[in-house]
């Protein structure tokens, strides 16, 4: 078996997220069903890495382990040198499905995570205003989630985690349920925000074009062996032109890899 692909740390600086020898299996009818096997990867600070793979390959599981929702069966998972043991505001998740609190309006949803921080009411309001503006939802603060479209909901979901300034942002197919037009808008928003804030992002997707559009690096997760099979750095200038020949070449290469 080939050696697991190592995340290239390049300049040799300590990686922000480091996963070494991670294995995980689910109990299914009494038998252990392995999902991830001896997987290793690392993310530098400020990087946007897409984790791509077919459904059932364990990419969501990997994200949940990094988030601290489930403990890994074996292996290490370090964020800024410290082991991940439980969920926390330094590793925030934007879920695929709507996970906004339905009884809170947009403002209150965004301010939810600030409850633990000692901020005066005025400071909190100002923060919320700033992030409403940032995700393009000015004027929608008093709306309830159920009155929002899917794309707007994901904007709120993004704002409520960015406001906590997490070390790493984990995104689990966040735009998978959106229509193509909205998805493009959201990708653009995400790219702008991540560049402005130098936000480190681990982004799970099964959409090849999405990965090539946003990622600095694409990691391909193999379904059967539960490891990173391929690592592709996307060396394209931003904003990326989807009709460009090189863009297409990256896409078809990833498609091919996925089909194997």
């Amino acid at each position, binding site marked *: 078996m080939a050696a697991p692909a190592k995340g290239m740390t390049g300049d040799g600086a300590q990686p922000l997220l480091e996963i070494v020898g991670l294995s995980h299996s689910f109990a299914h009818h009494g038998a252990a069903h392995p999902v991830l096997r001896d997987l290793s990867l690392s993310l530098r600070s400020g990087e946007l890495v897409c984790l791509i793979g077919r459904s059932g390959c364990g990419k969501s599981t990997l994200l949940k382990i990094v988030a601290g929702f489930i403990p890994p069966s074996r292996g290490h998972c370090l964020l800024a040198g410290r082991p991940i043991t*439980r969920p926390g505001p330094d590793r925030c*998740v934007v879920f695929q499905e709507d996970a906004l609190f339905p*009884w809170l*309006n947009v403002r209150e949803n965004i301010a939810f*995570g600030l409850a633990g921080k000692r901020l005066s009411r005025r400071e909190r309001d100002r923060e919320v205003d700033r992030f409403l503006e940032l995700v393009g939802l000015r004027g929608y603060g008093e709306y309830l989630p159920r009155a929002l479209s899917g794309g707007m909901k994901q904007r709120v979901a993004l704002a409520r985690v960015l406001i906590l300034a997490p070390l790493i942002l984990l995104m689990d197919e966040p735009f998978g349920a959106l229509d193509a037009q909205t998805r493009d808008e959201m990708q653009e928003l995400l790219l702008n925000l991540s560049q402005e804030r130098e936000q480190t992002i681990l982004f799970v997707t099964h959409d090849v074009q999405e990965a090539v559009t946003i990622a600095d690096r694409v990691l391909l997760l193999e379904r059967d062996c539960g490891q990173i099979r391929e690592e592709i750095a996307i060396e394209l200038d931003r904003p990326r032109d989807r009709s460009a020949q090189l863009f297409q070449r990256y896409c078809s290469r990833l498609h091919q890899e996925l089909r194997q």
Partner: protein
Amino acid sequence: MNKRPHENRRFMVPKEIPMKAKEVLPTLLVPLLAVGAWFAVSALGLVPGYLLPHPLTVLDAGLHYIFGTPGTGAYGGRFLGDFSASLGRVLLGFSLAAALGIPLGILSGRLVLINRLASGAINSLRAVPGICWLPLAMIWFGIGIKTTVFLVAMAAFFPIYQNALTGARLVAPIYYQAGAMLGVSRFRGIFAILLPMAMPNIITGLRLGMGISWAYLVLGELTGVPNGLGAVIMDARMLGQIDIILVGIILIALIGRLCDRLLVALMRLCFKSARRQS
């Protein structure tokens, strides 16, 4: 995306309790038809008066019961005393049921062990009809307020418990995960996430419980209580005063409905999660 907010303002506030004529009229239609039919039956003499008195006779008896001078006739002006006695019993029993039912239901909904411990016993007890408890309650608590409160609490407990349980169980794990990553501890999550999410079910349980409270009140007041709306009904039966029986039934129906409205309004007043999710 750039639409000004006021264009969508109607989405902002959940729908208020219906108050418009268009919505109220259908609600009133059936009671009005029933009263109309009652008038017709009495006017045509289809049913003898000792089985179903004329509506105006009943209205007269009701007005006398509510506004009459105390001491005139058997029932003159007794309403206020009966009403407050009954209301006190209902509120006491209902509060007991809610105070036990909600926490126990939430715990059973979240913790498998608690559910296994509680649900078997509770579900068997629920199968026992309320009237079976009456003899036991009379032996345990004697005749009077305790028996009534016990019966009311007993009856109201089950719907409150069951709905709180369902509500707690239906909260998707993703909300706890979202809470945890936003820095909410497990304990604070009970109040910050679990209870607000379960609120619509909790309210359903409370409303069902409130409704059944009034039913069991009458059962509890059947025997030997001097005052109360149920007591008046039983008393009137002994004296053959069918008009007062009807007055009692109508009053309980009206008060029960009013209590339901007040309960919902109170919950909406106190909890954002009730205001915005129902």
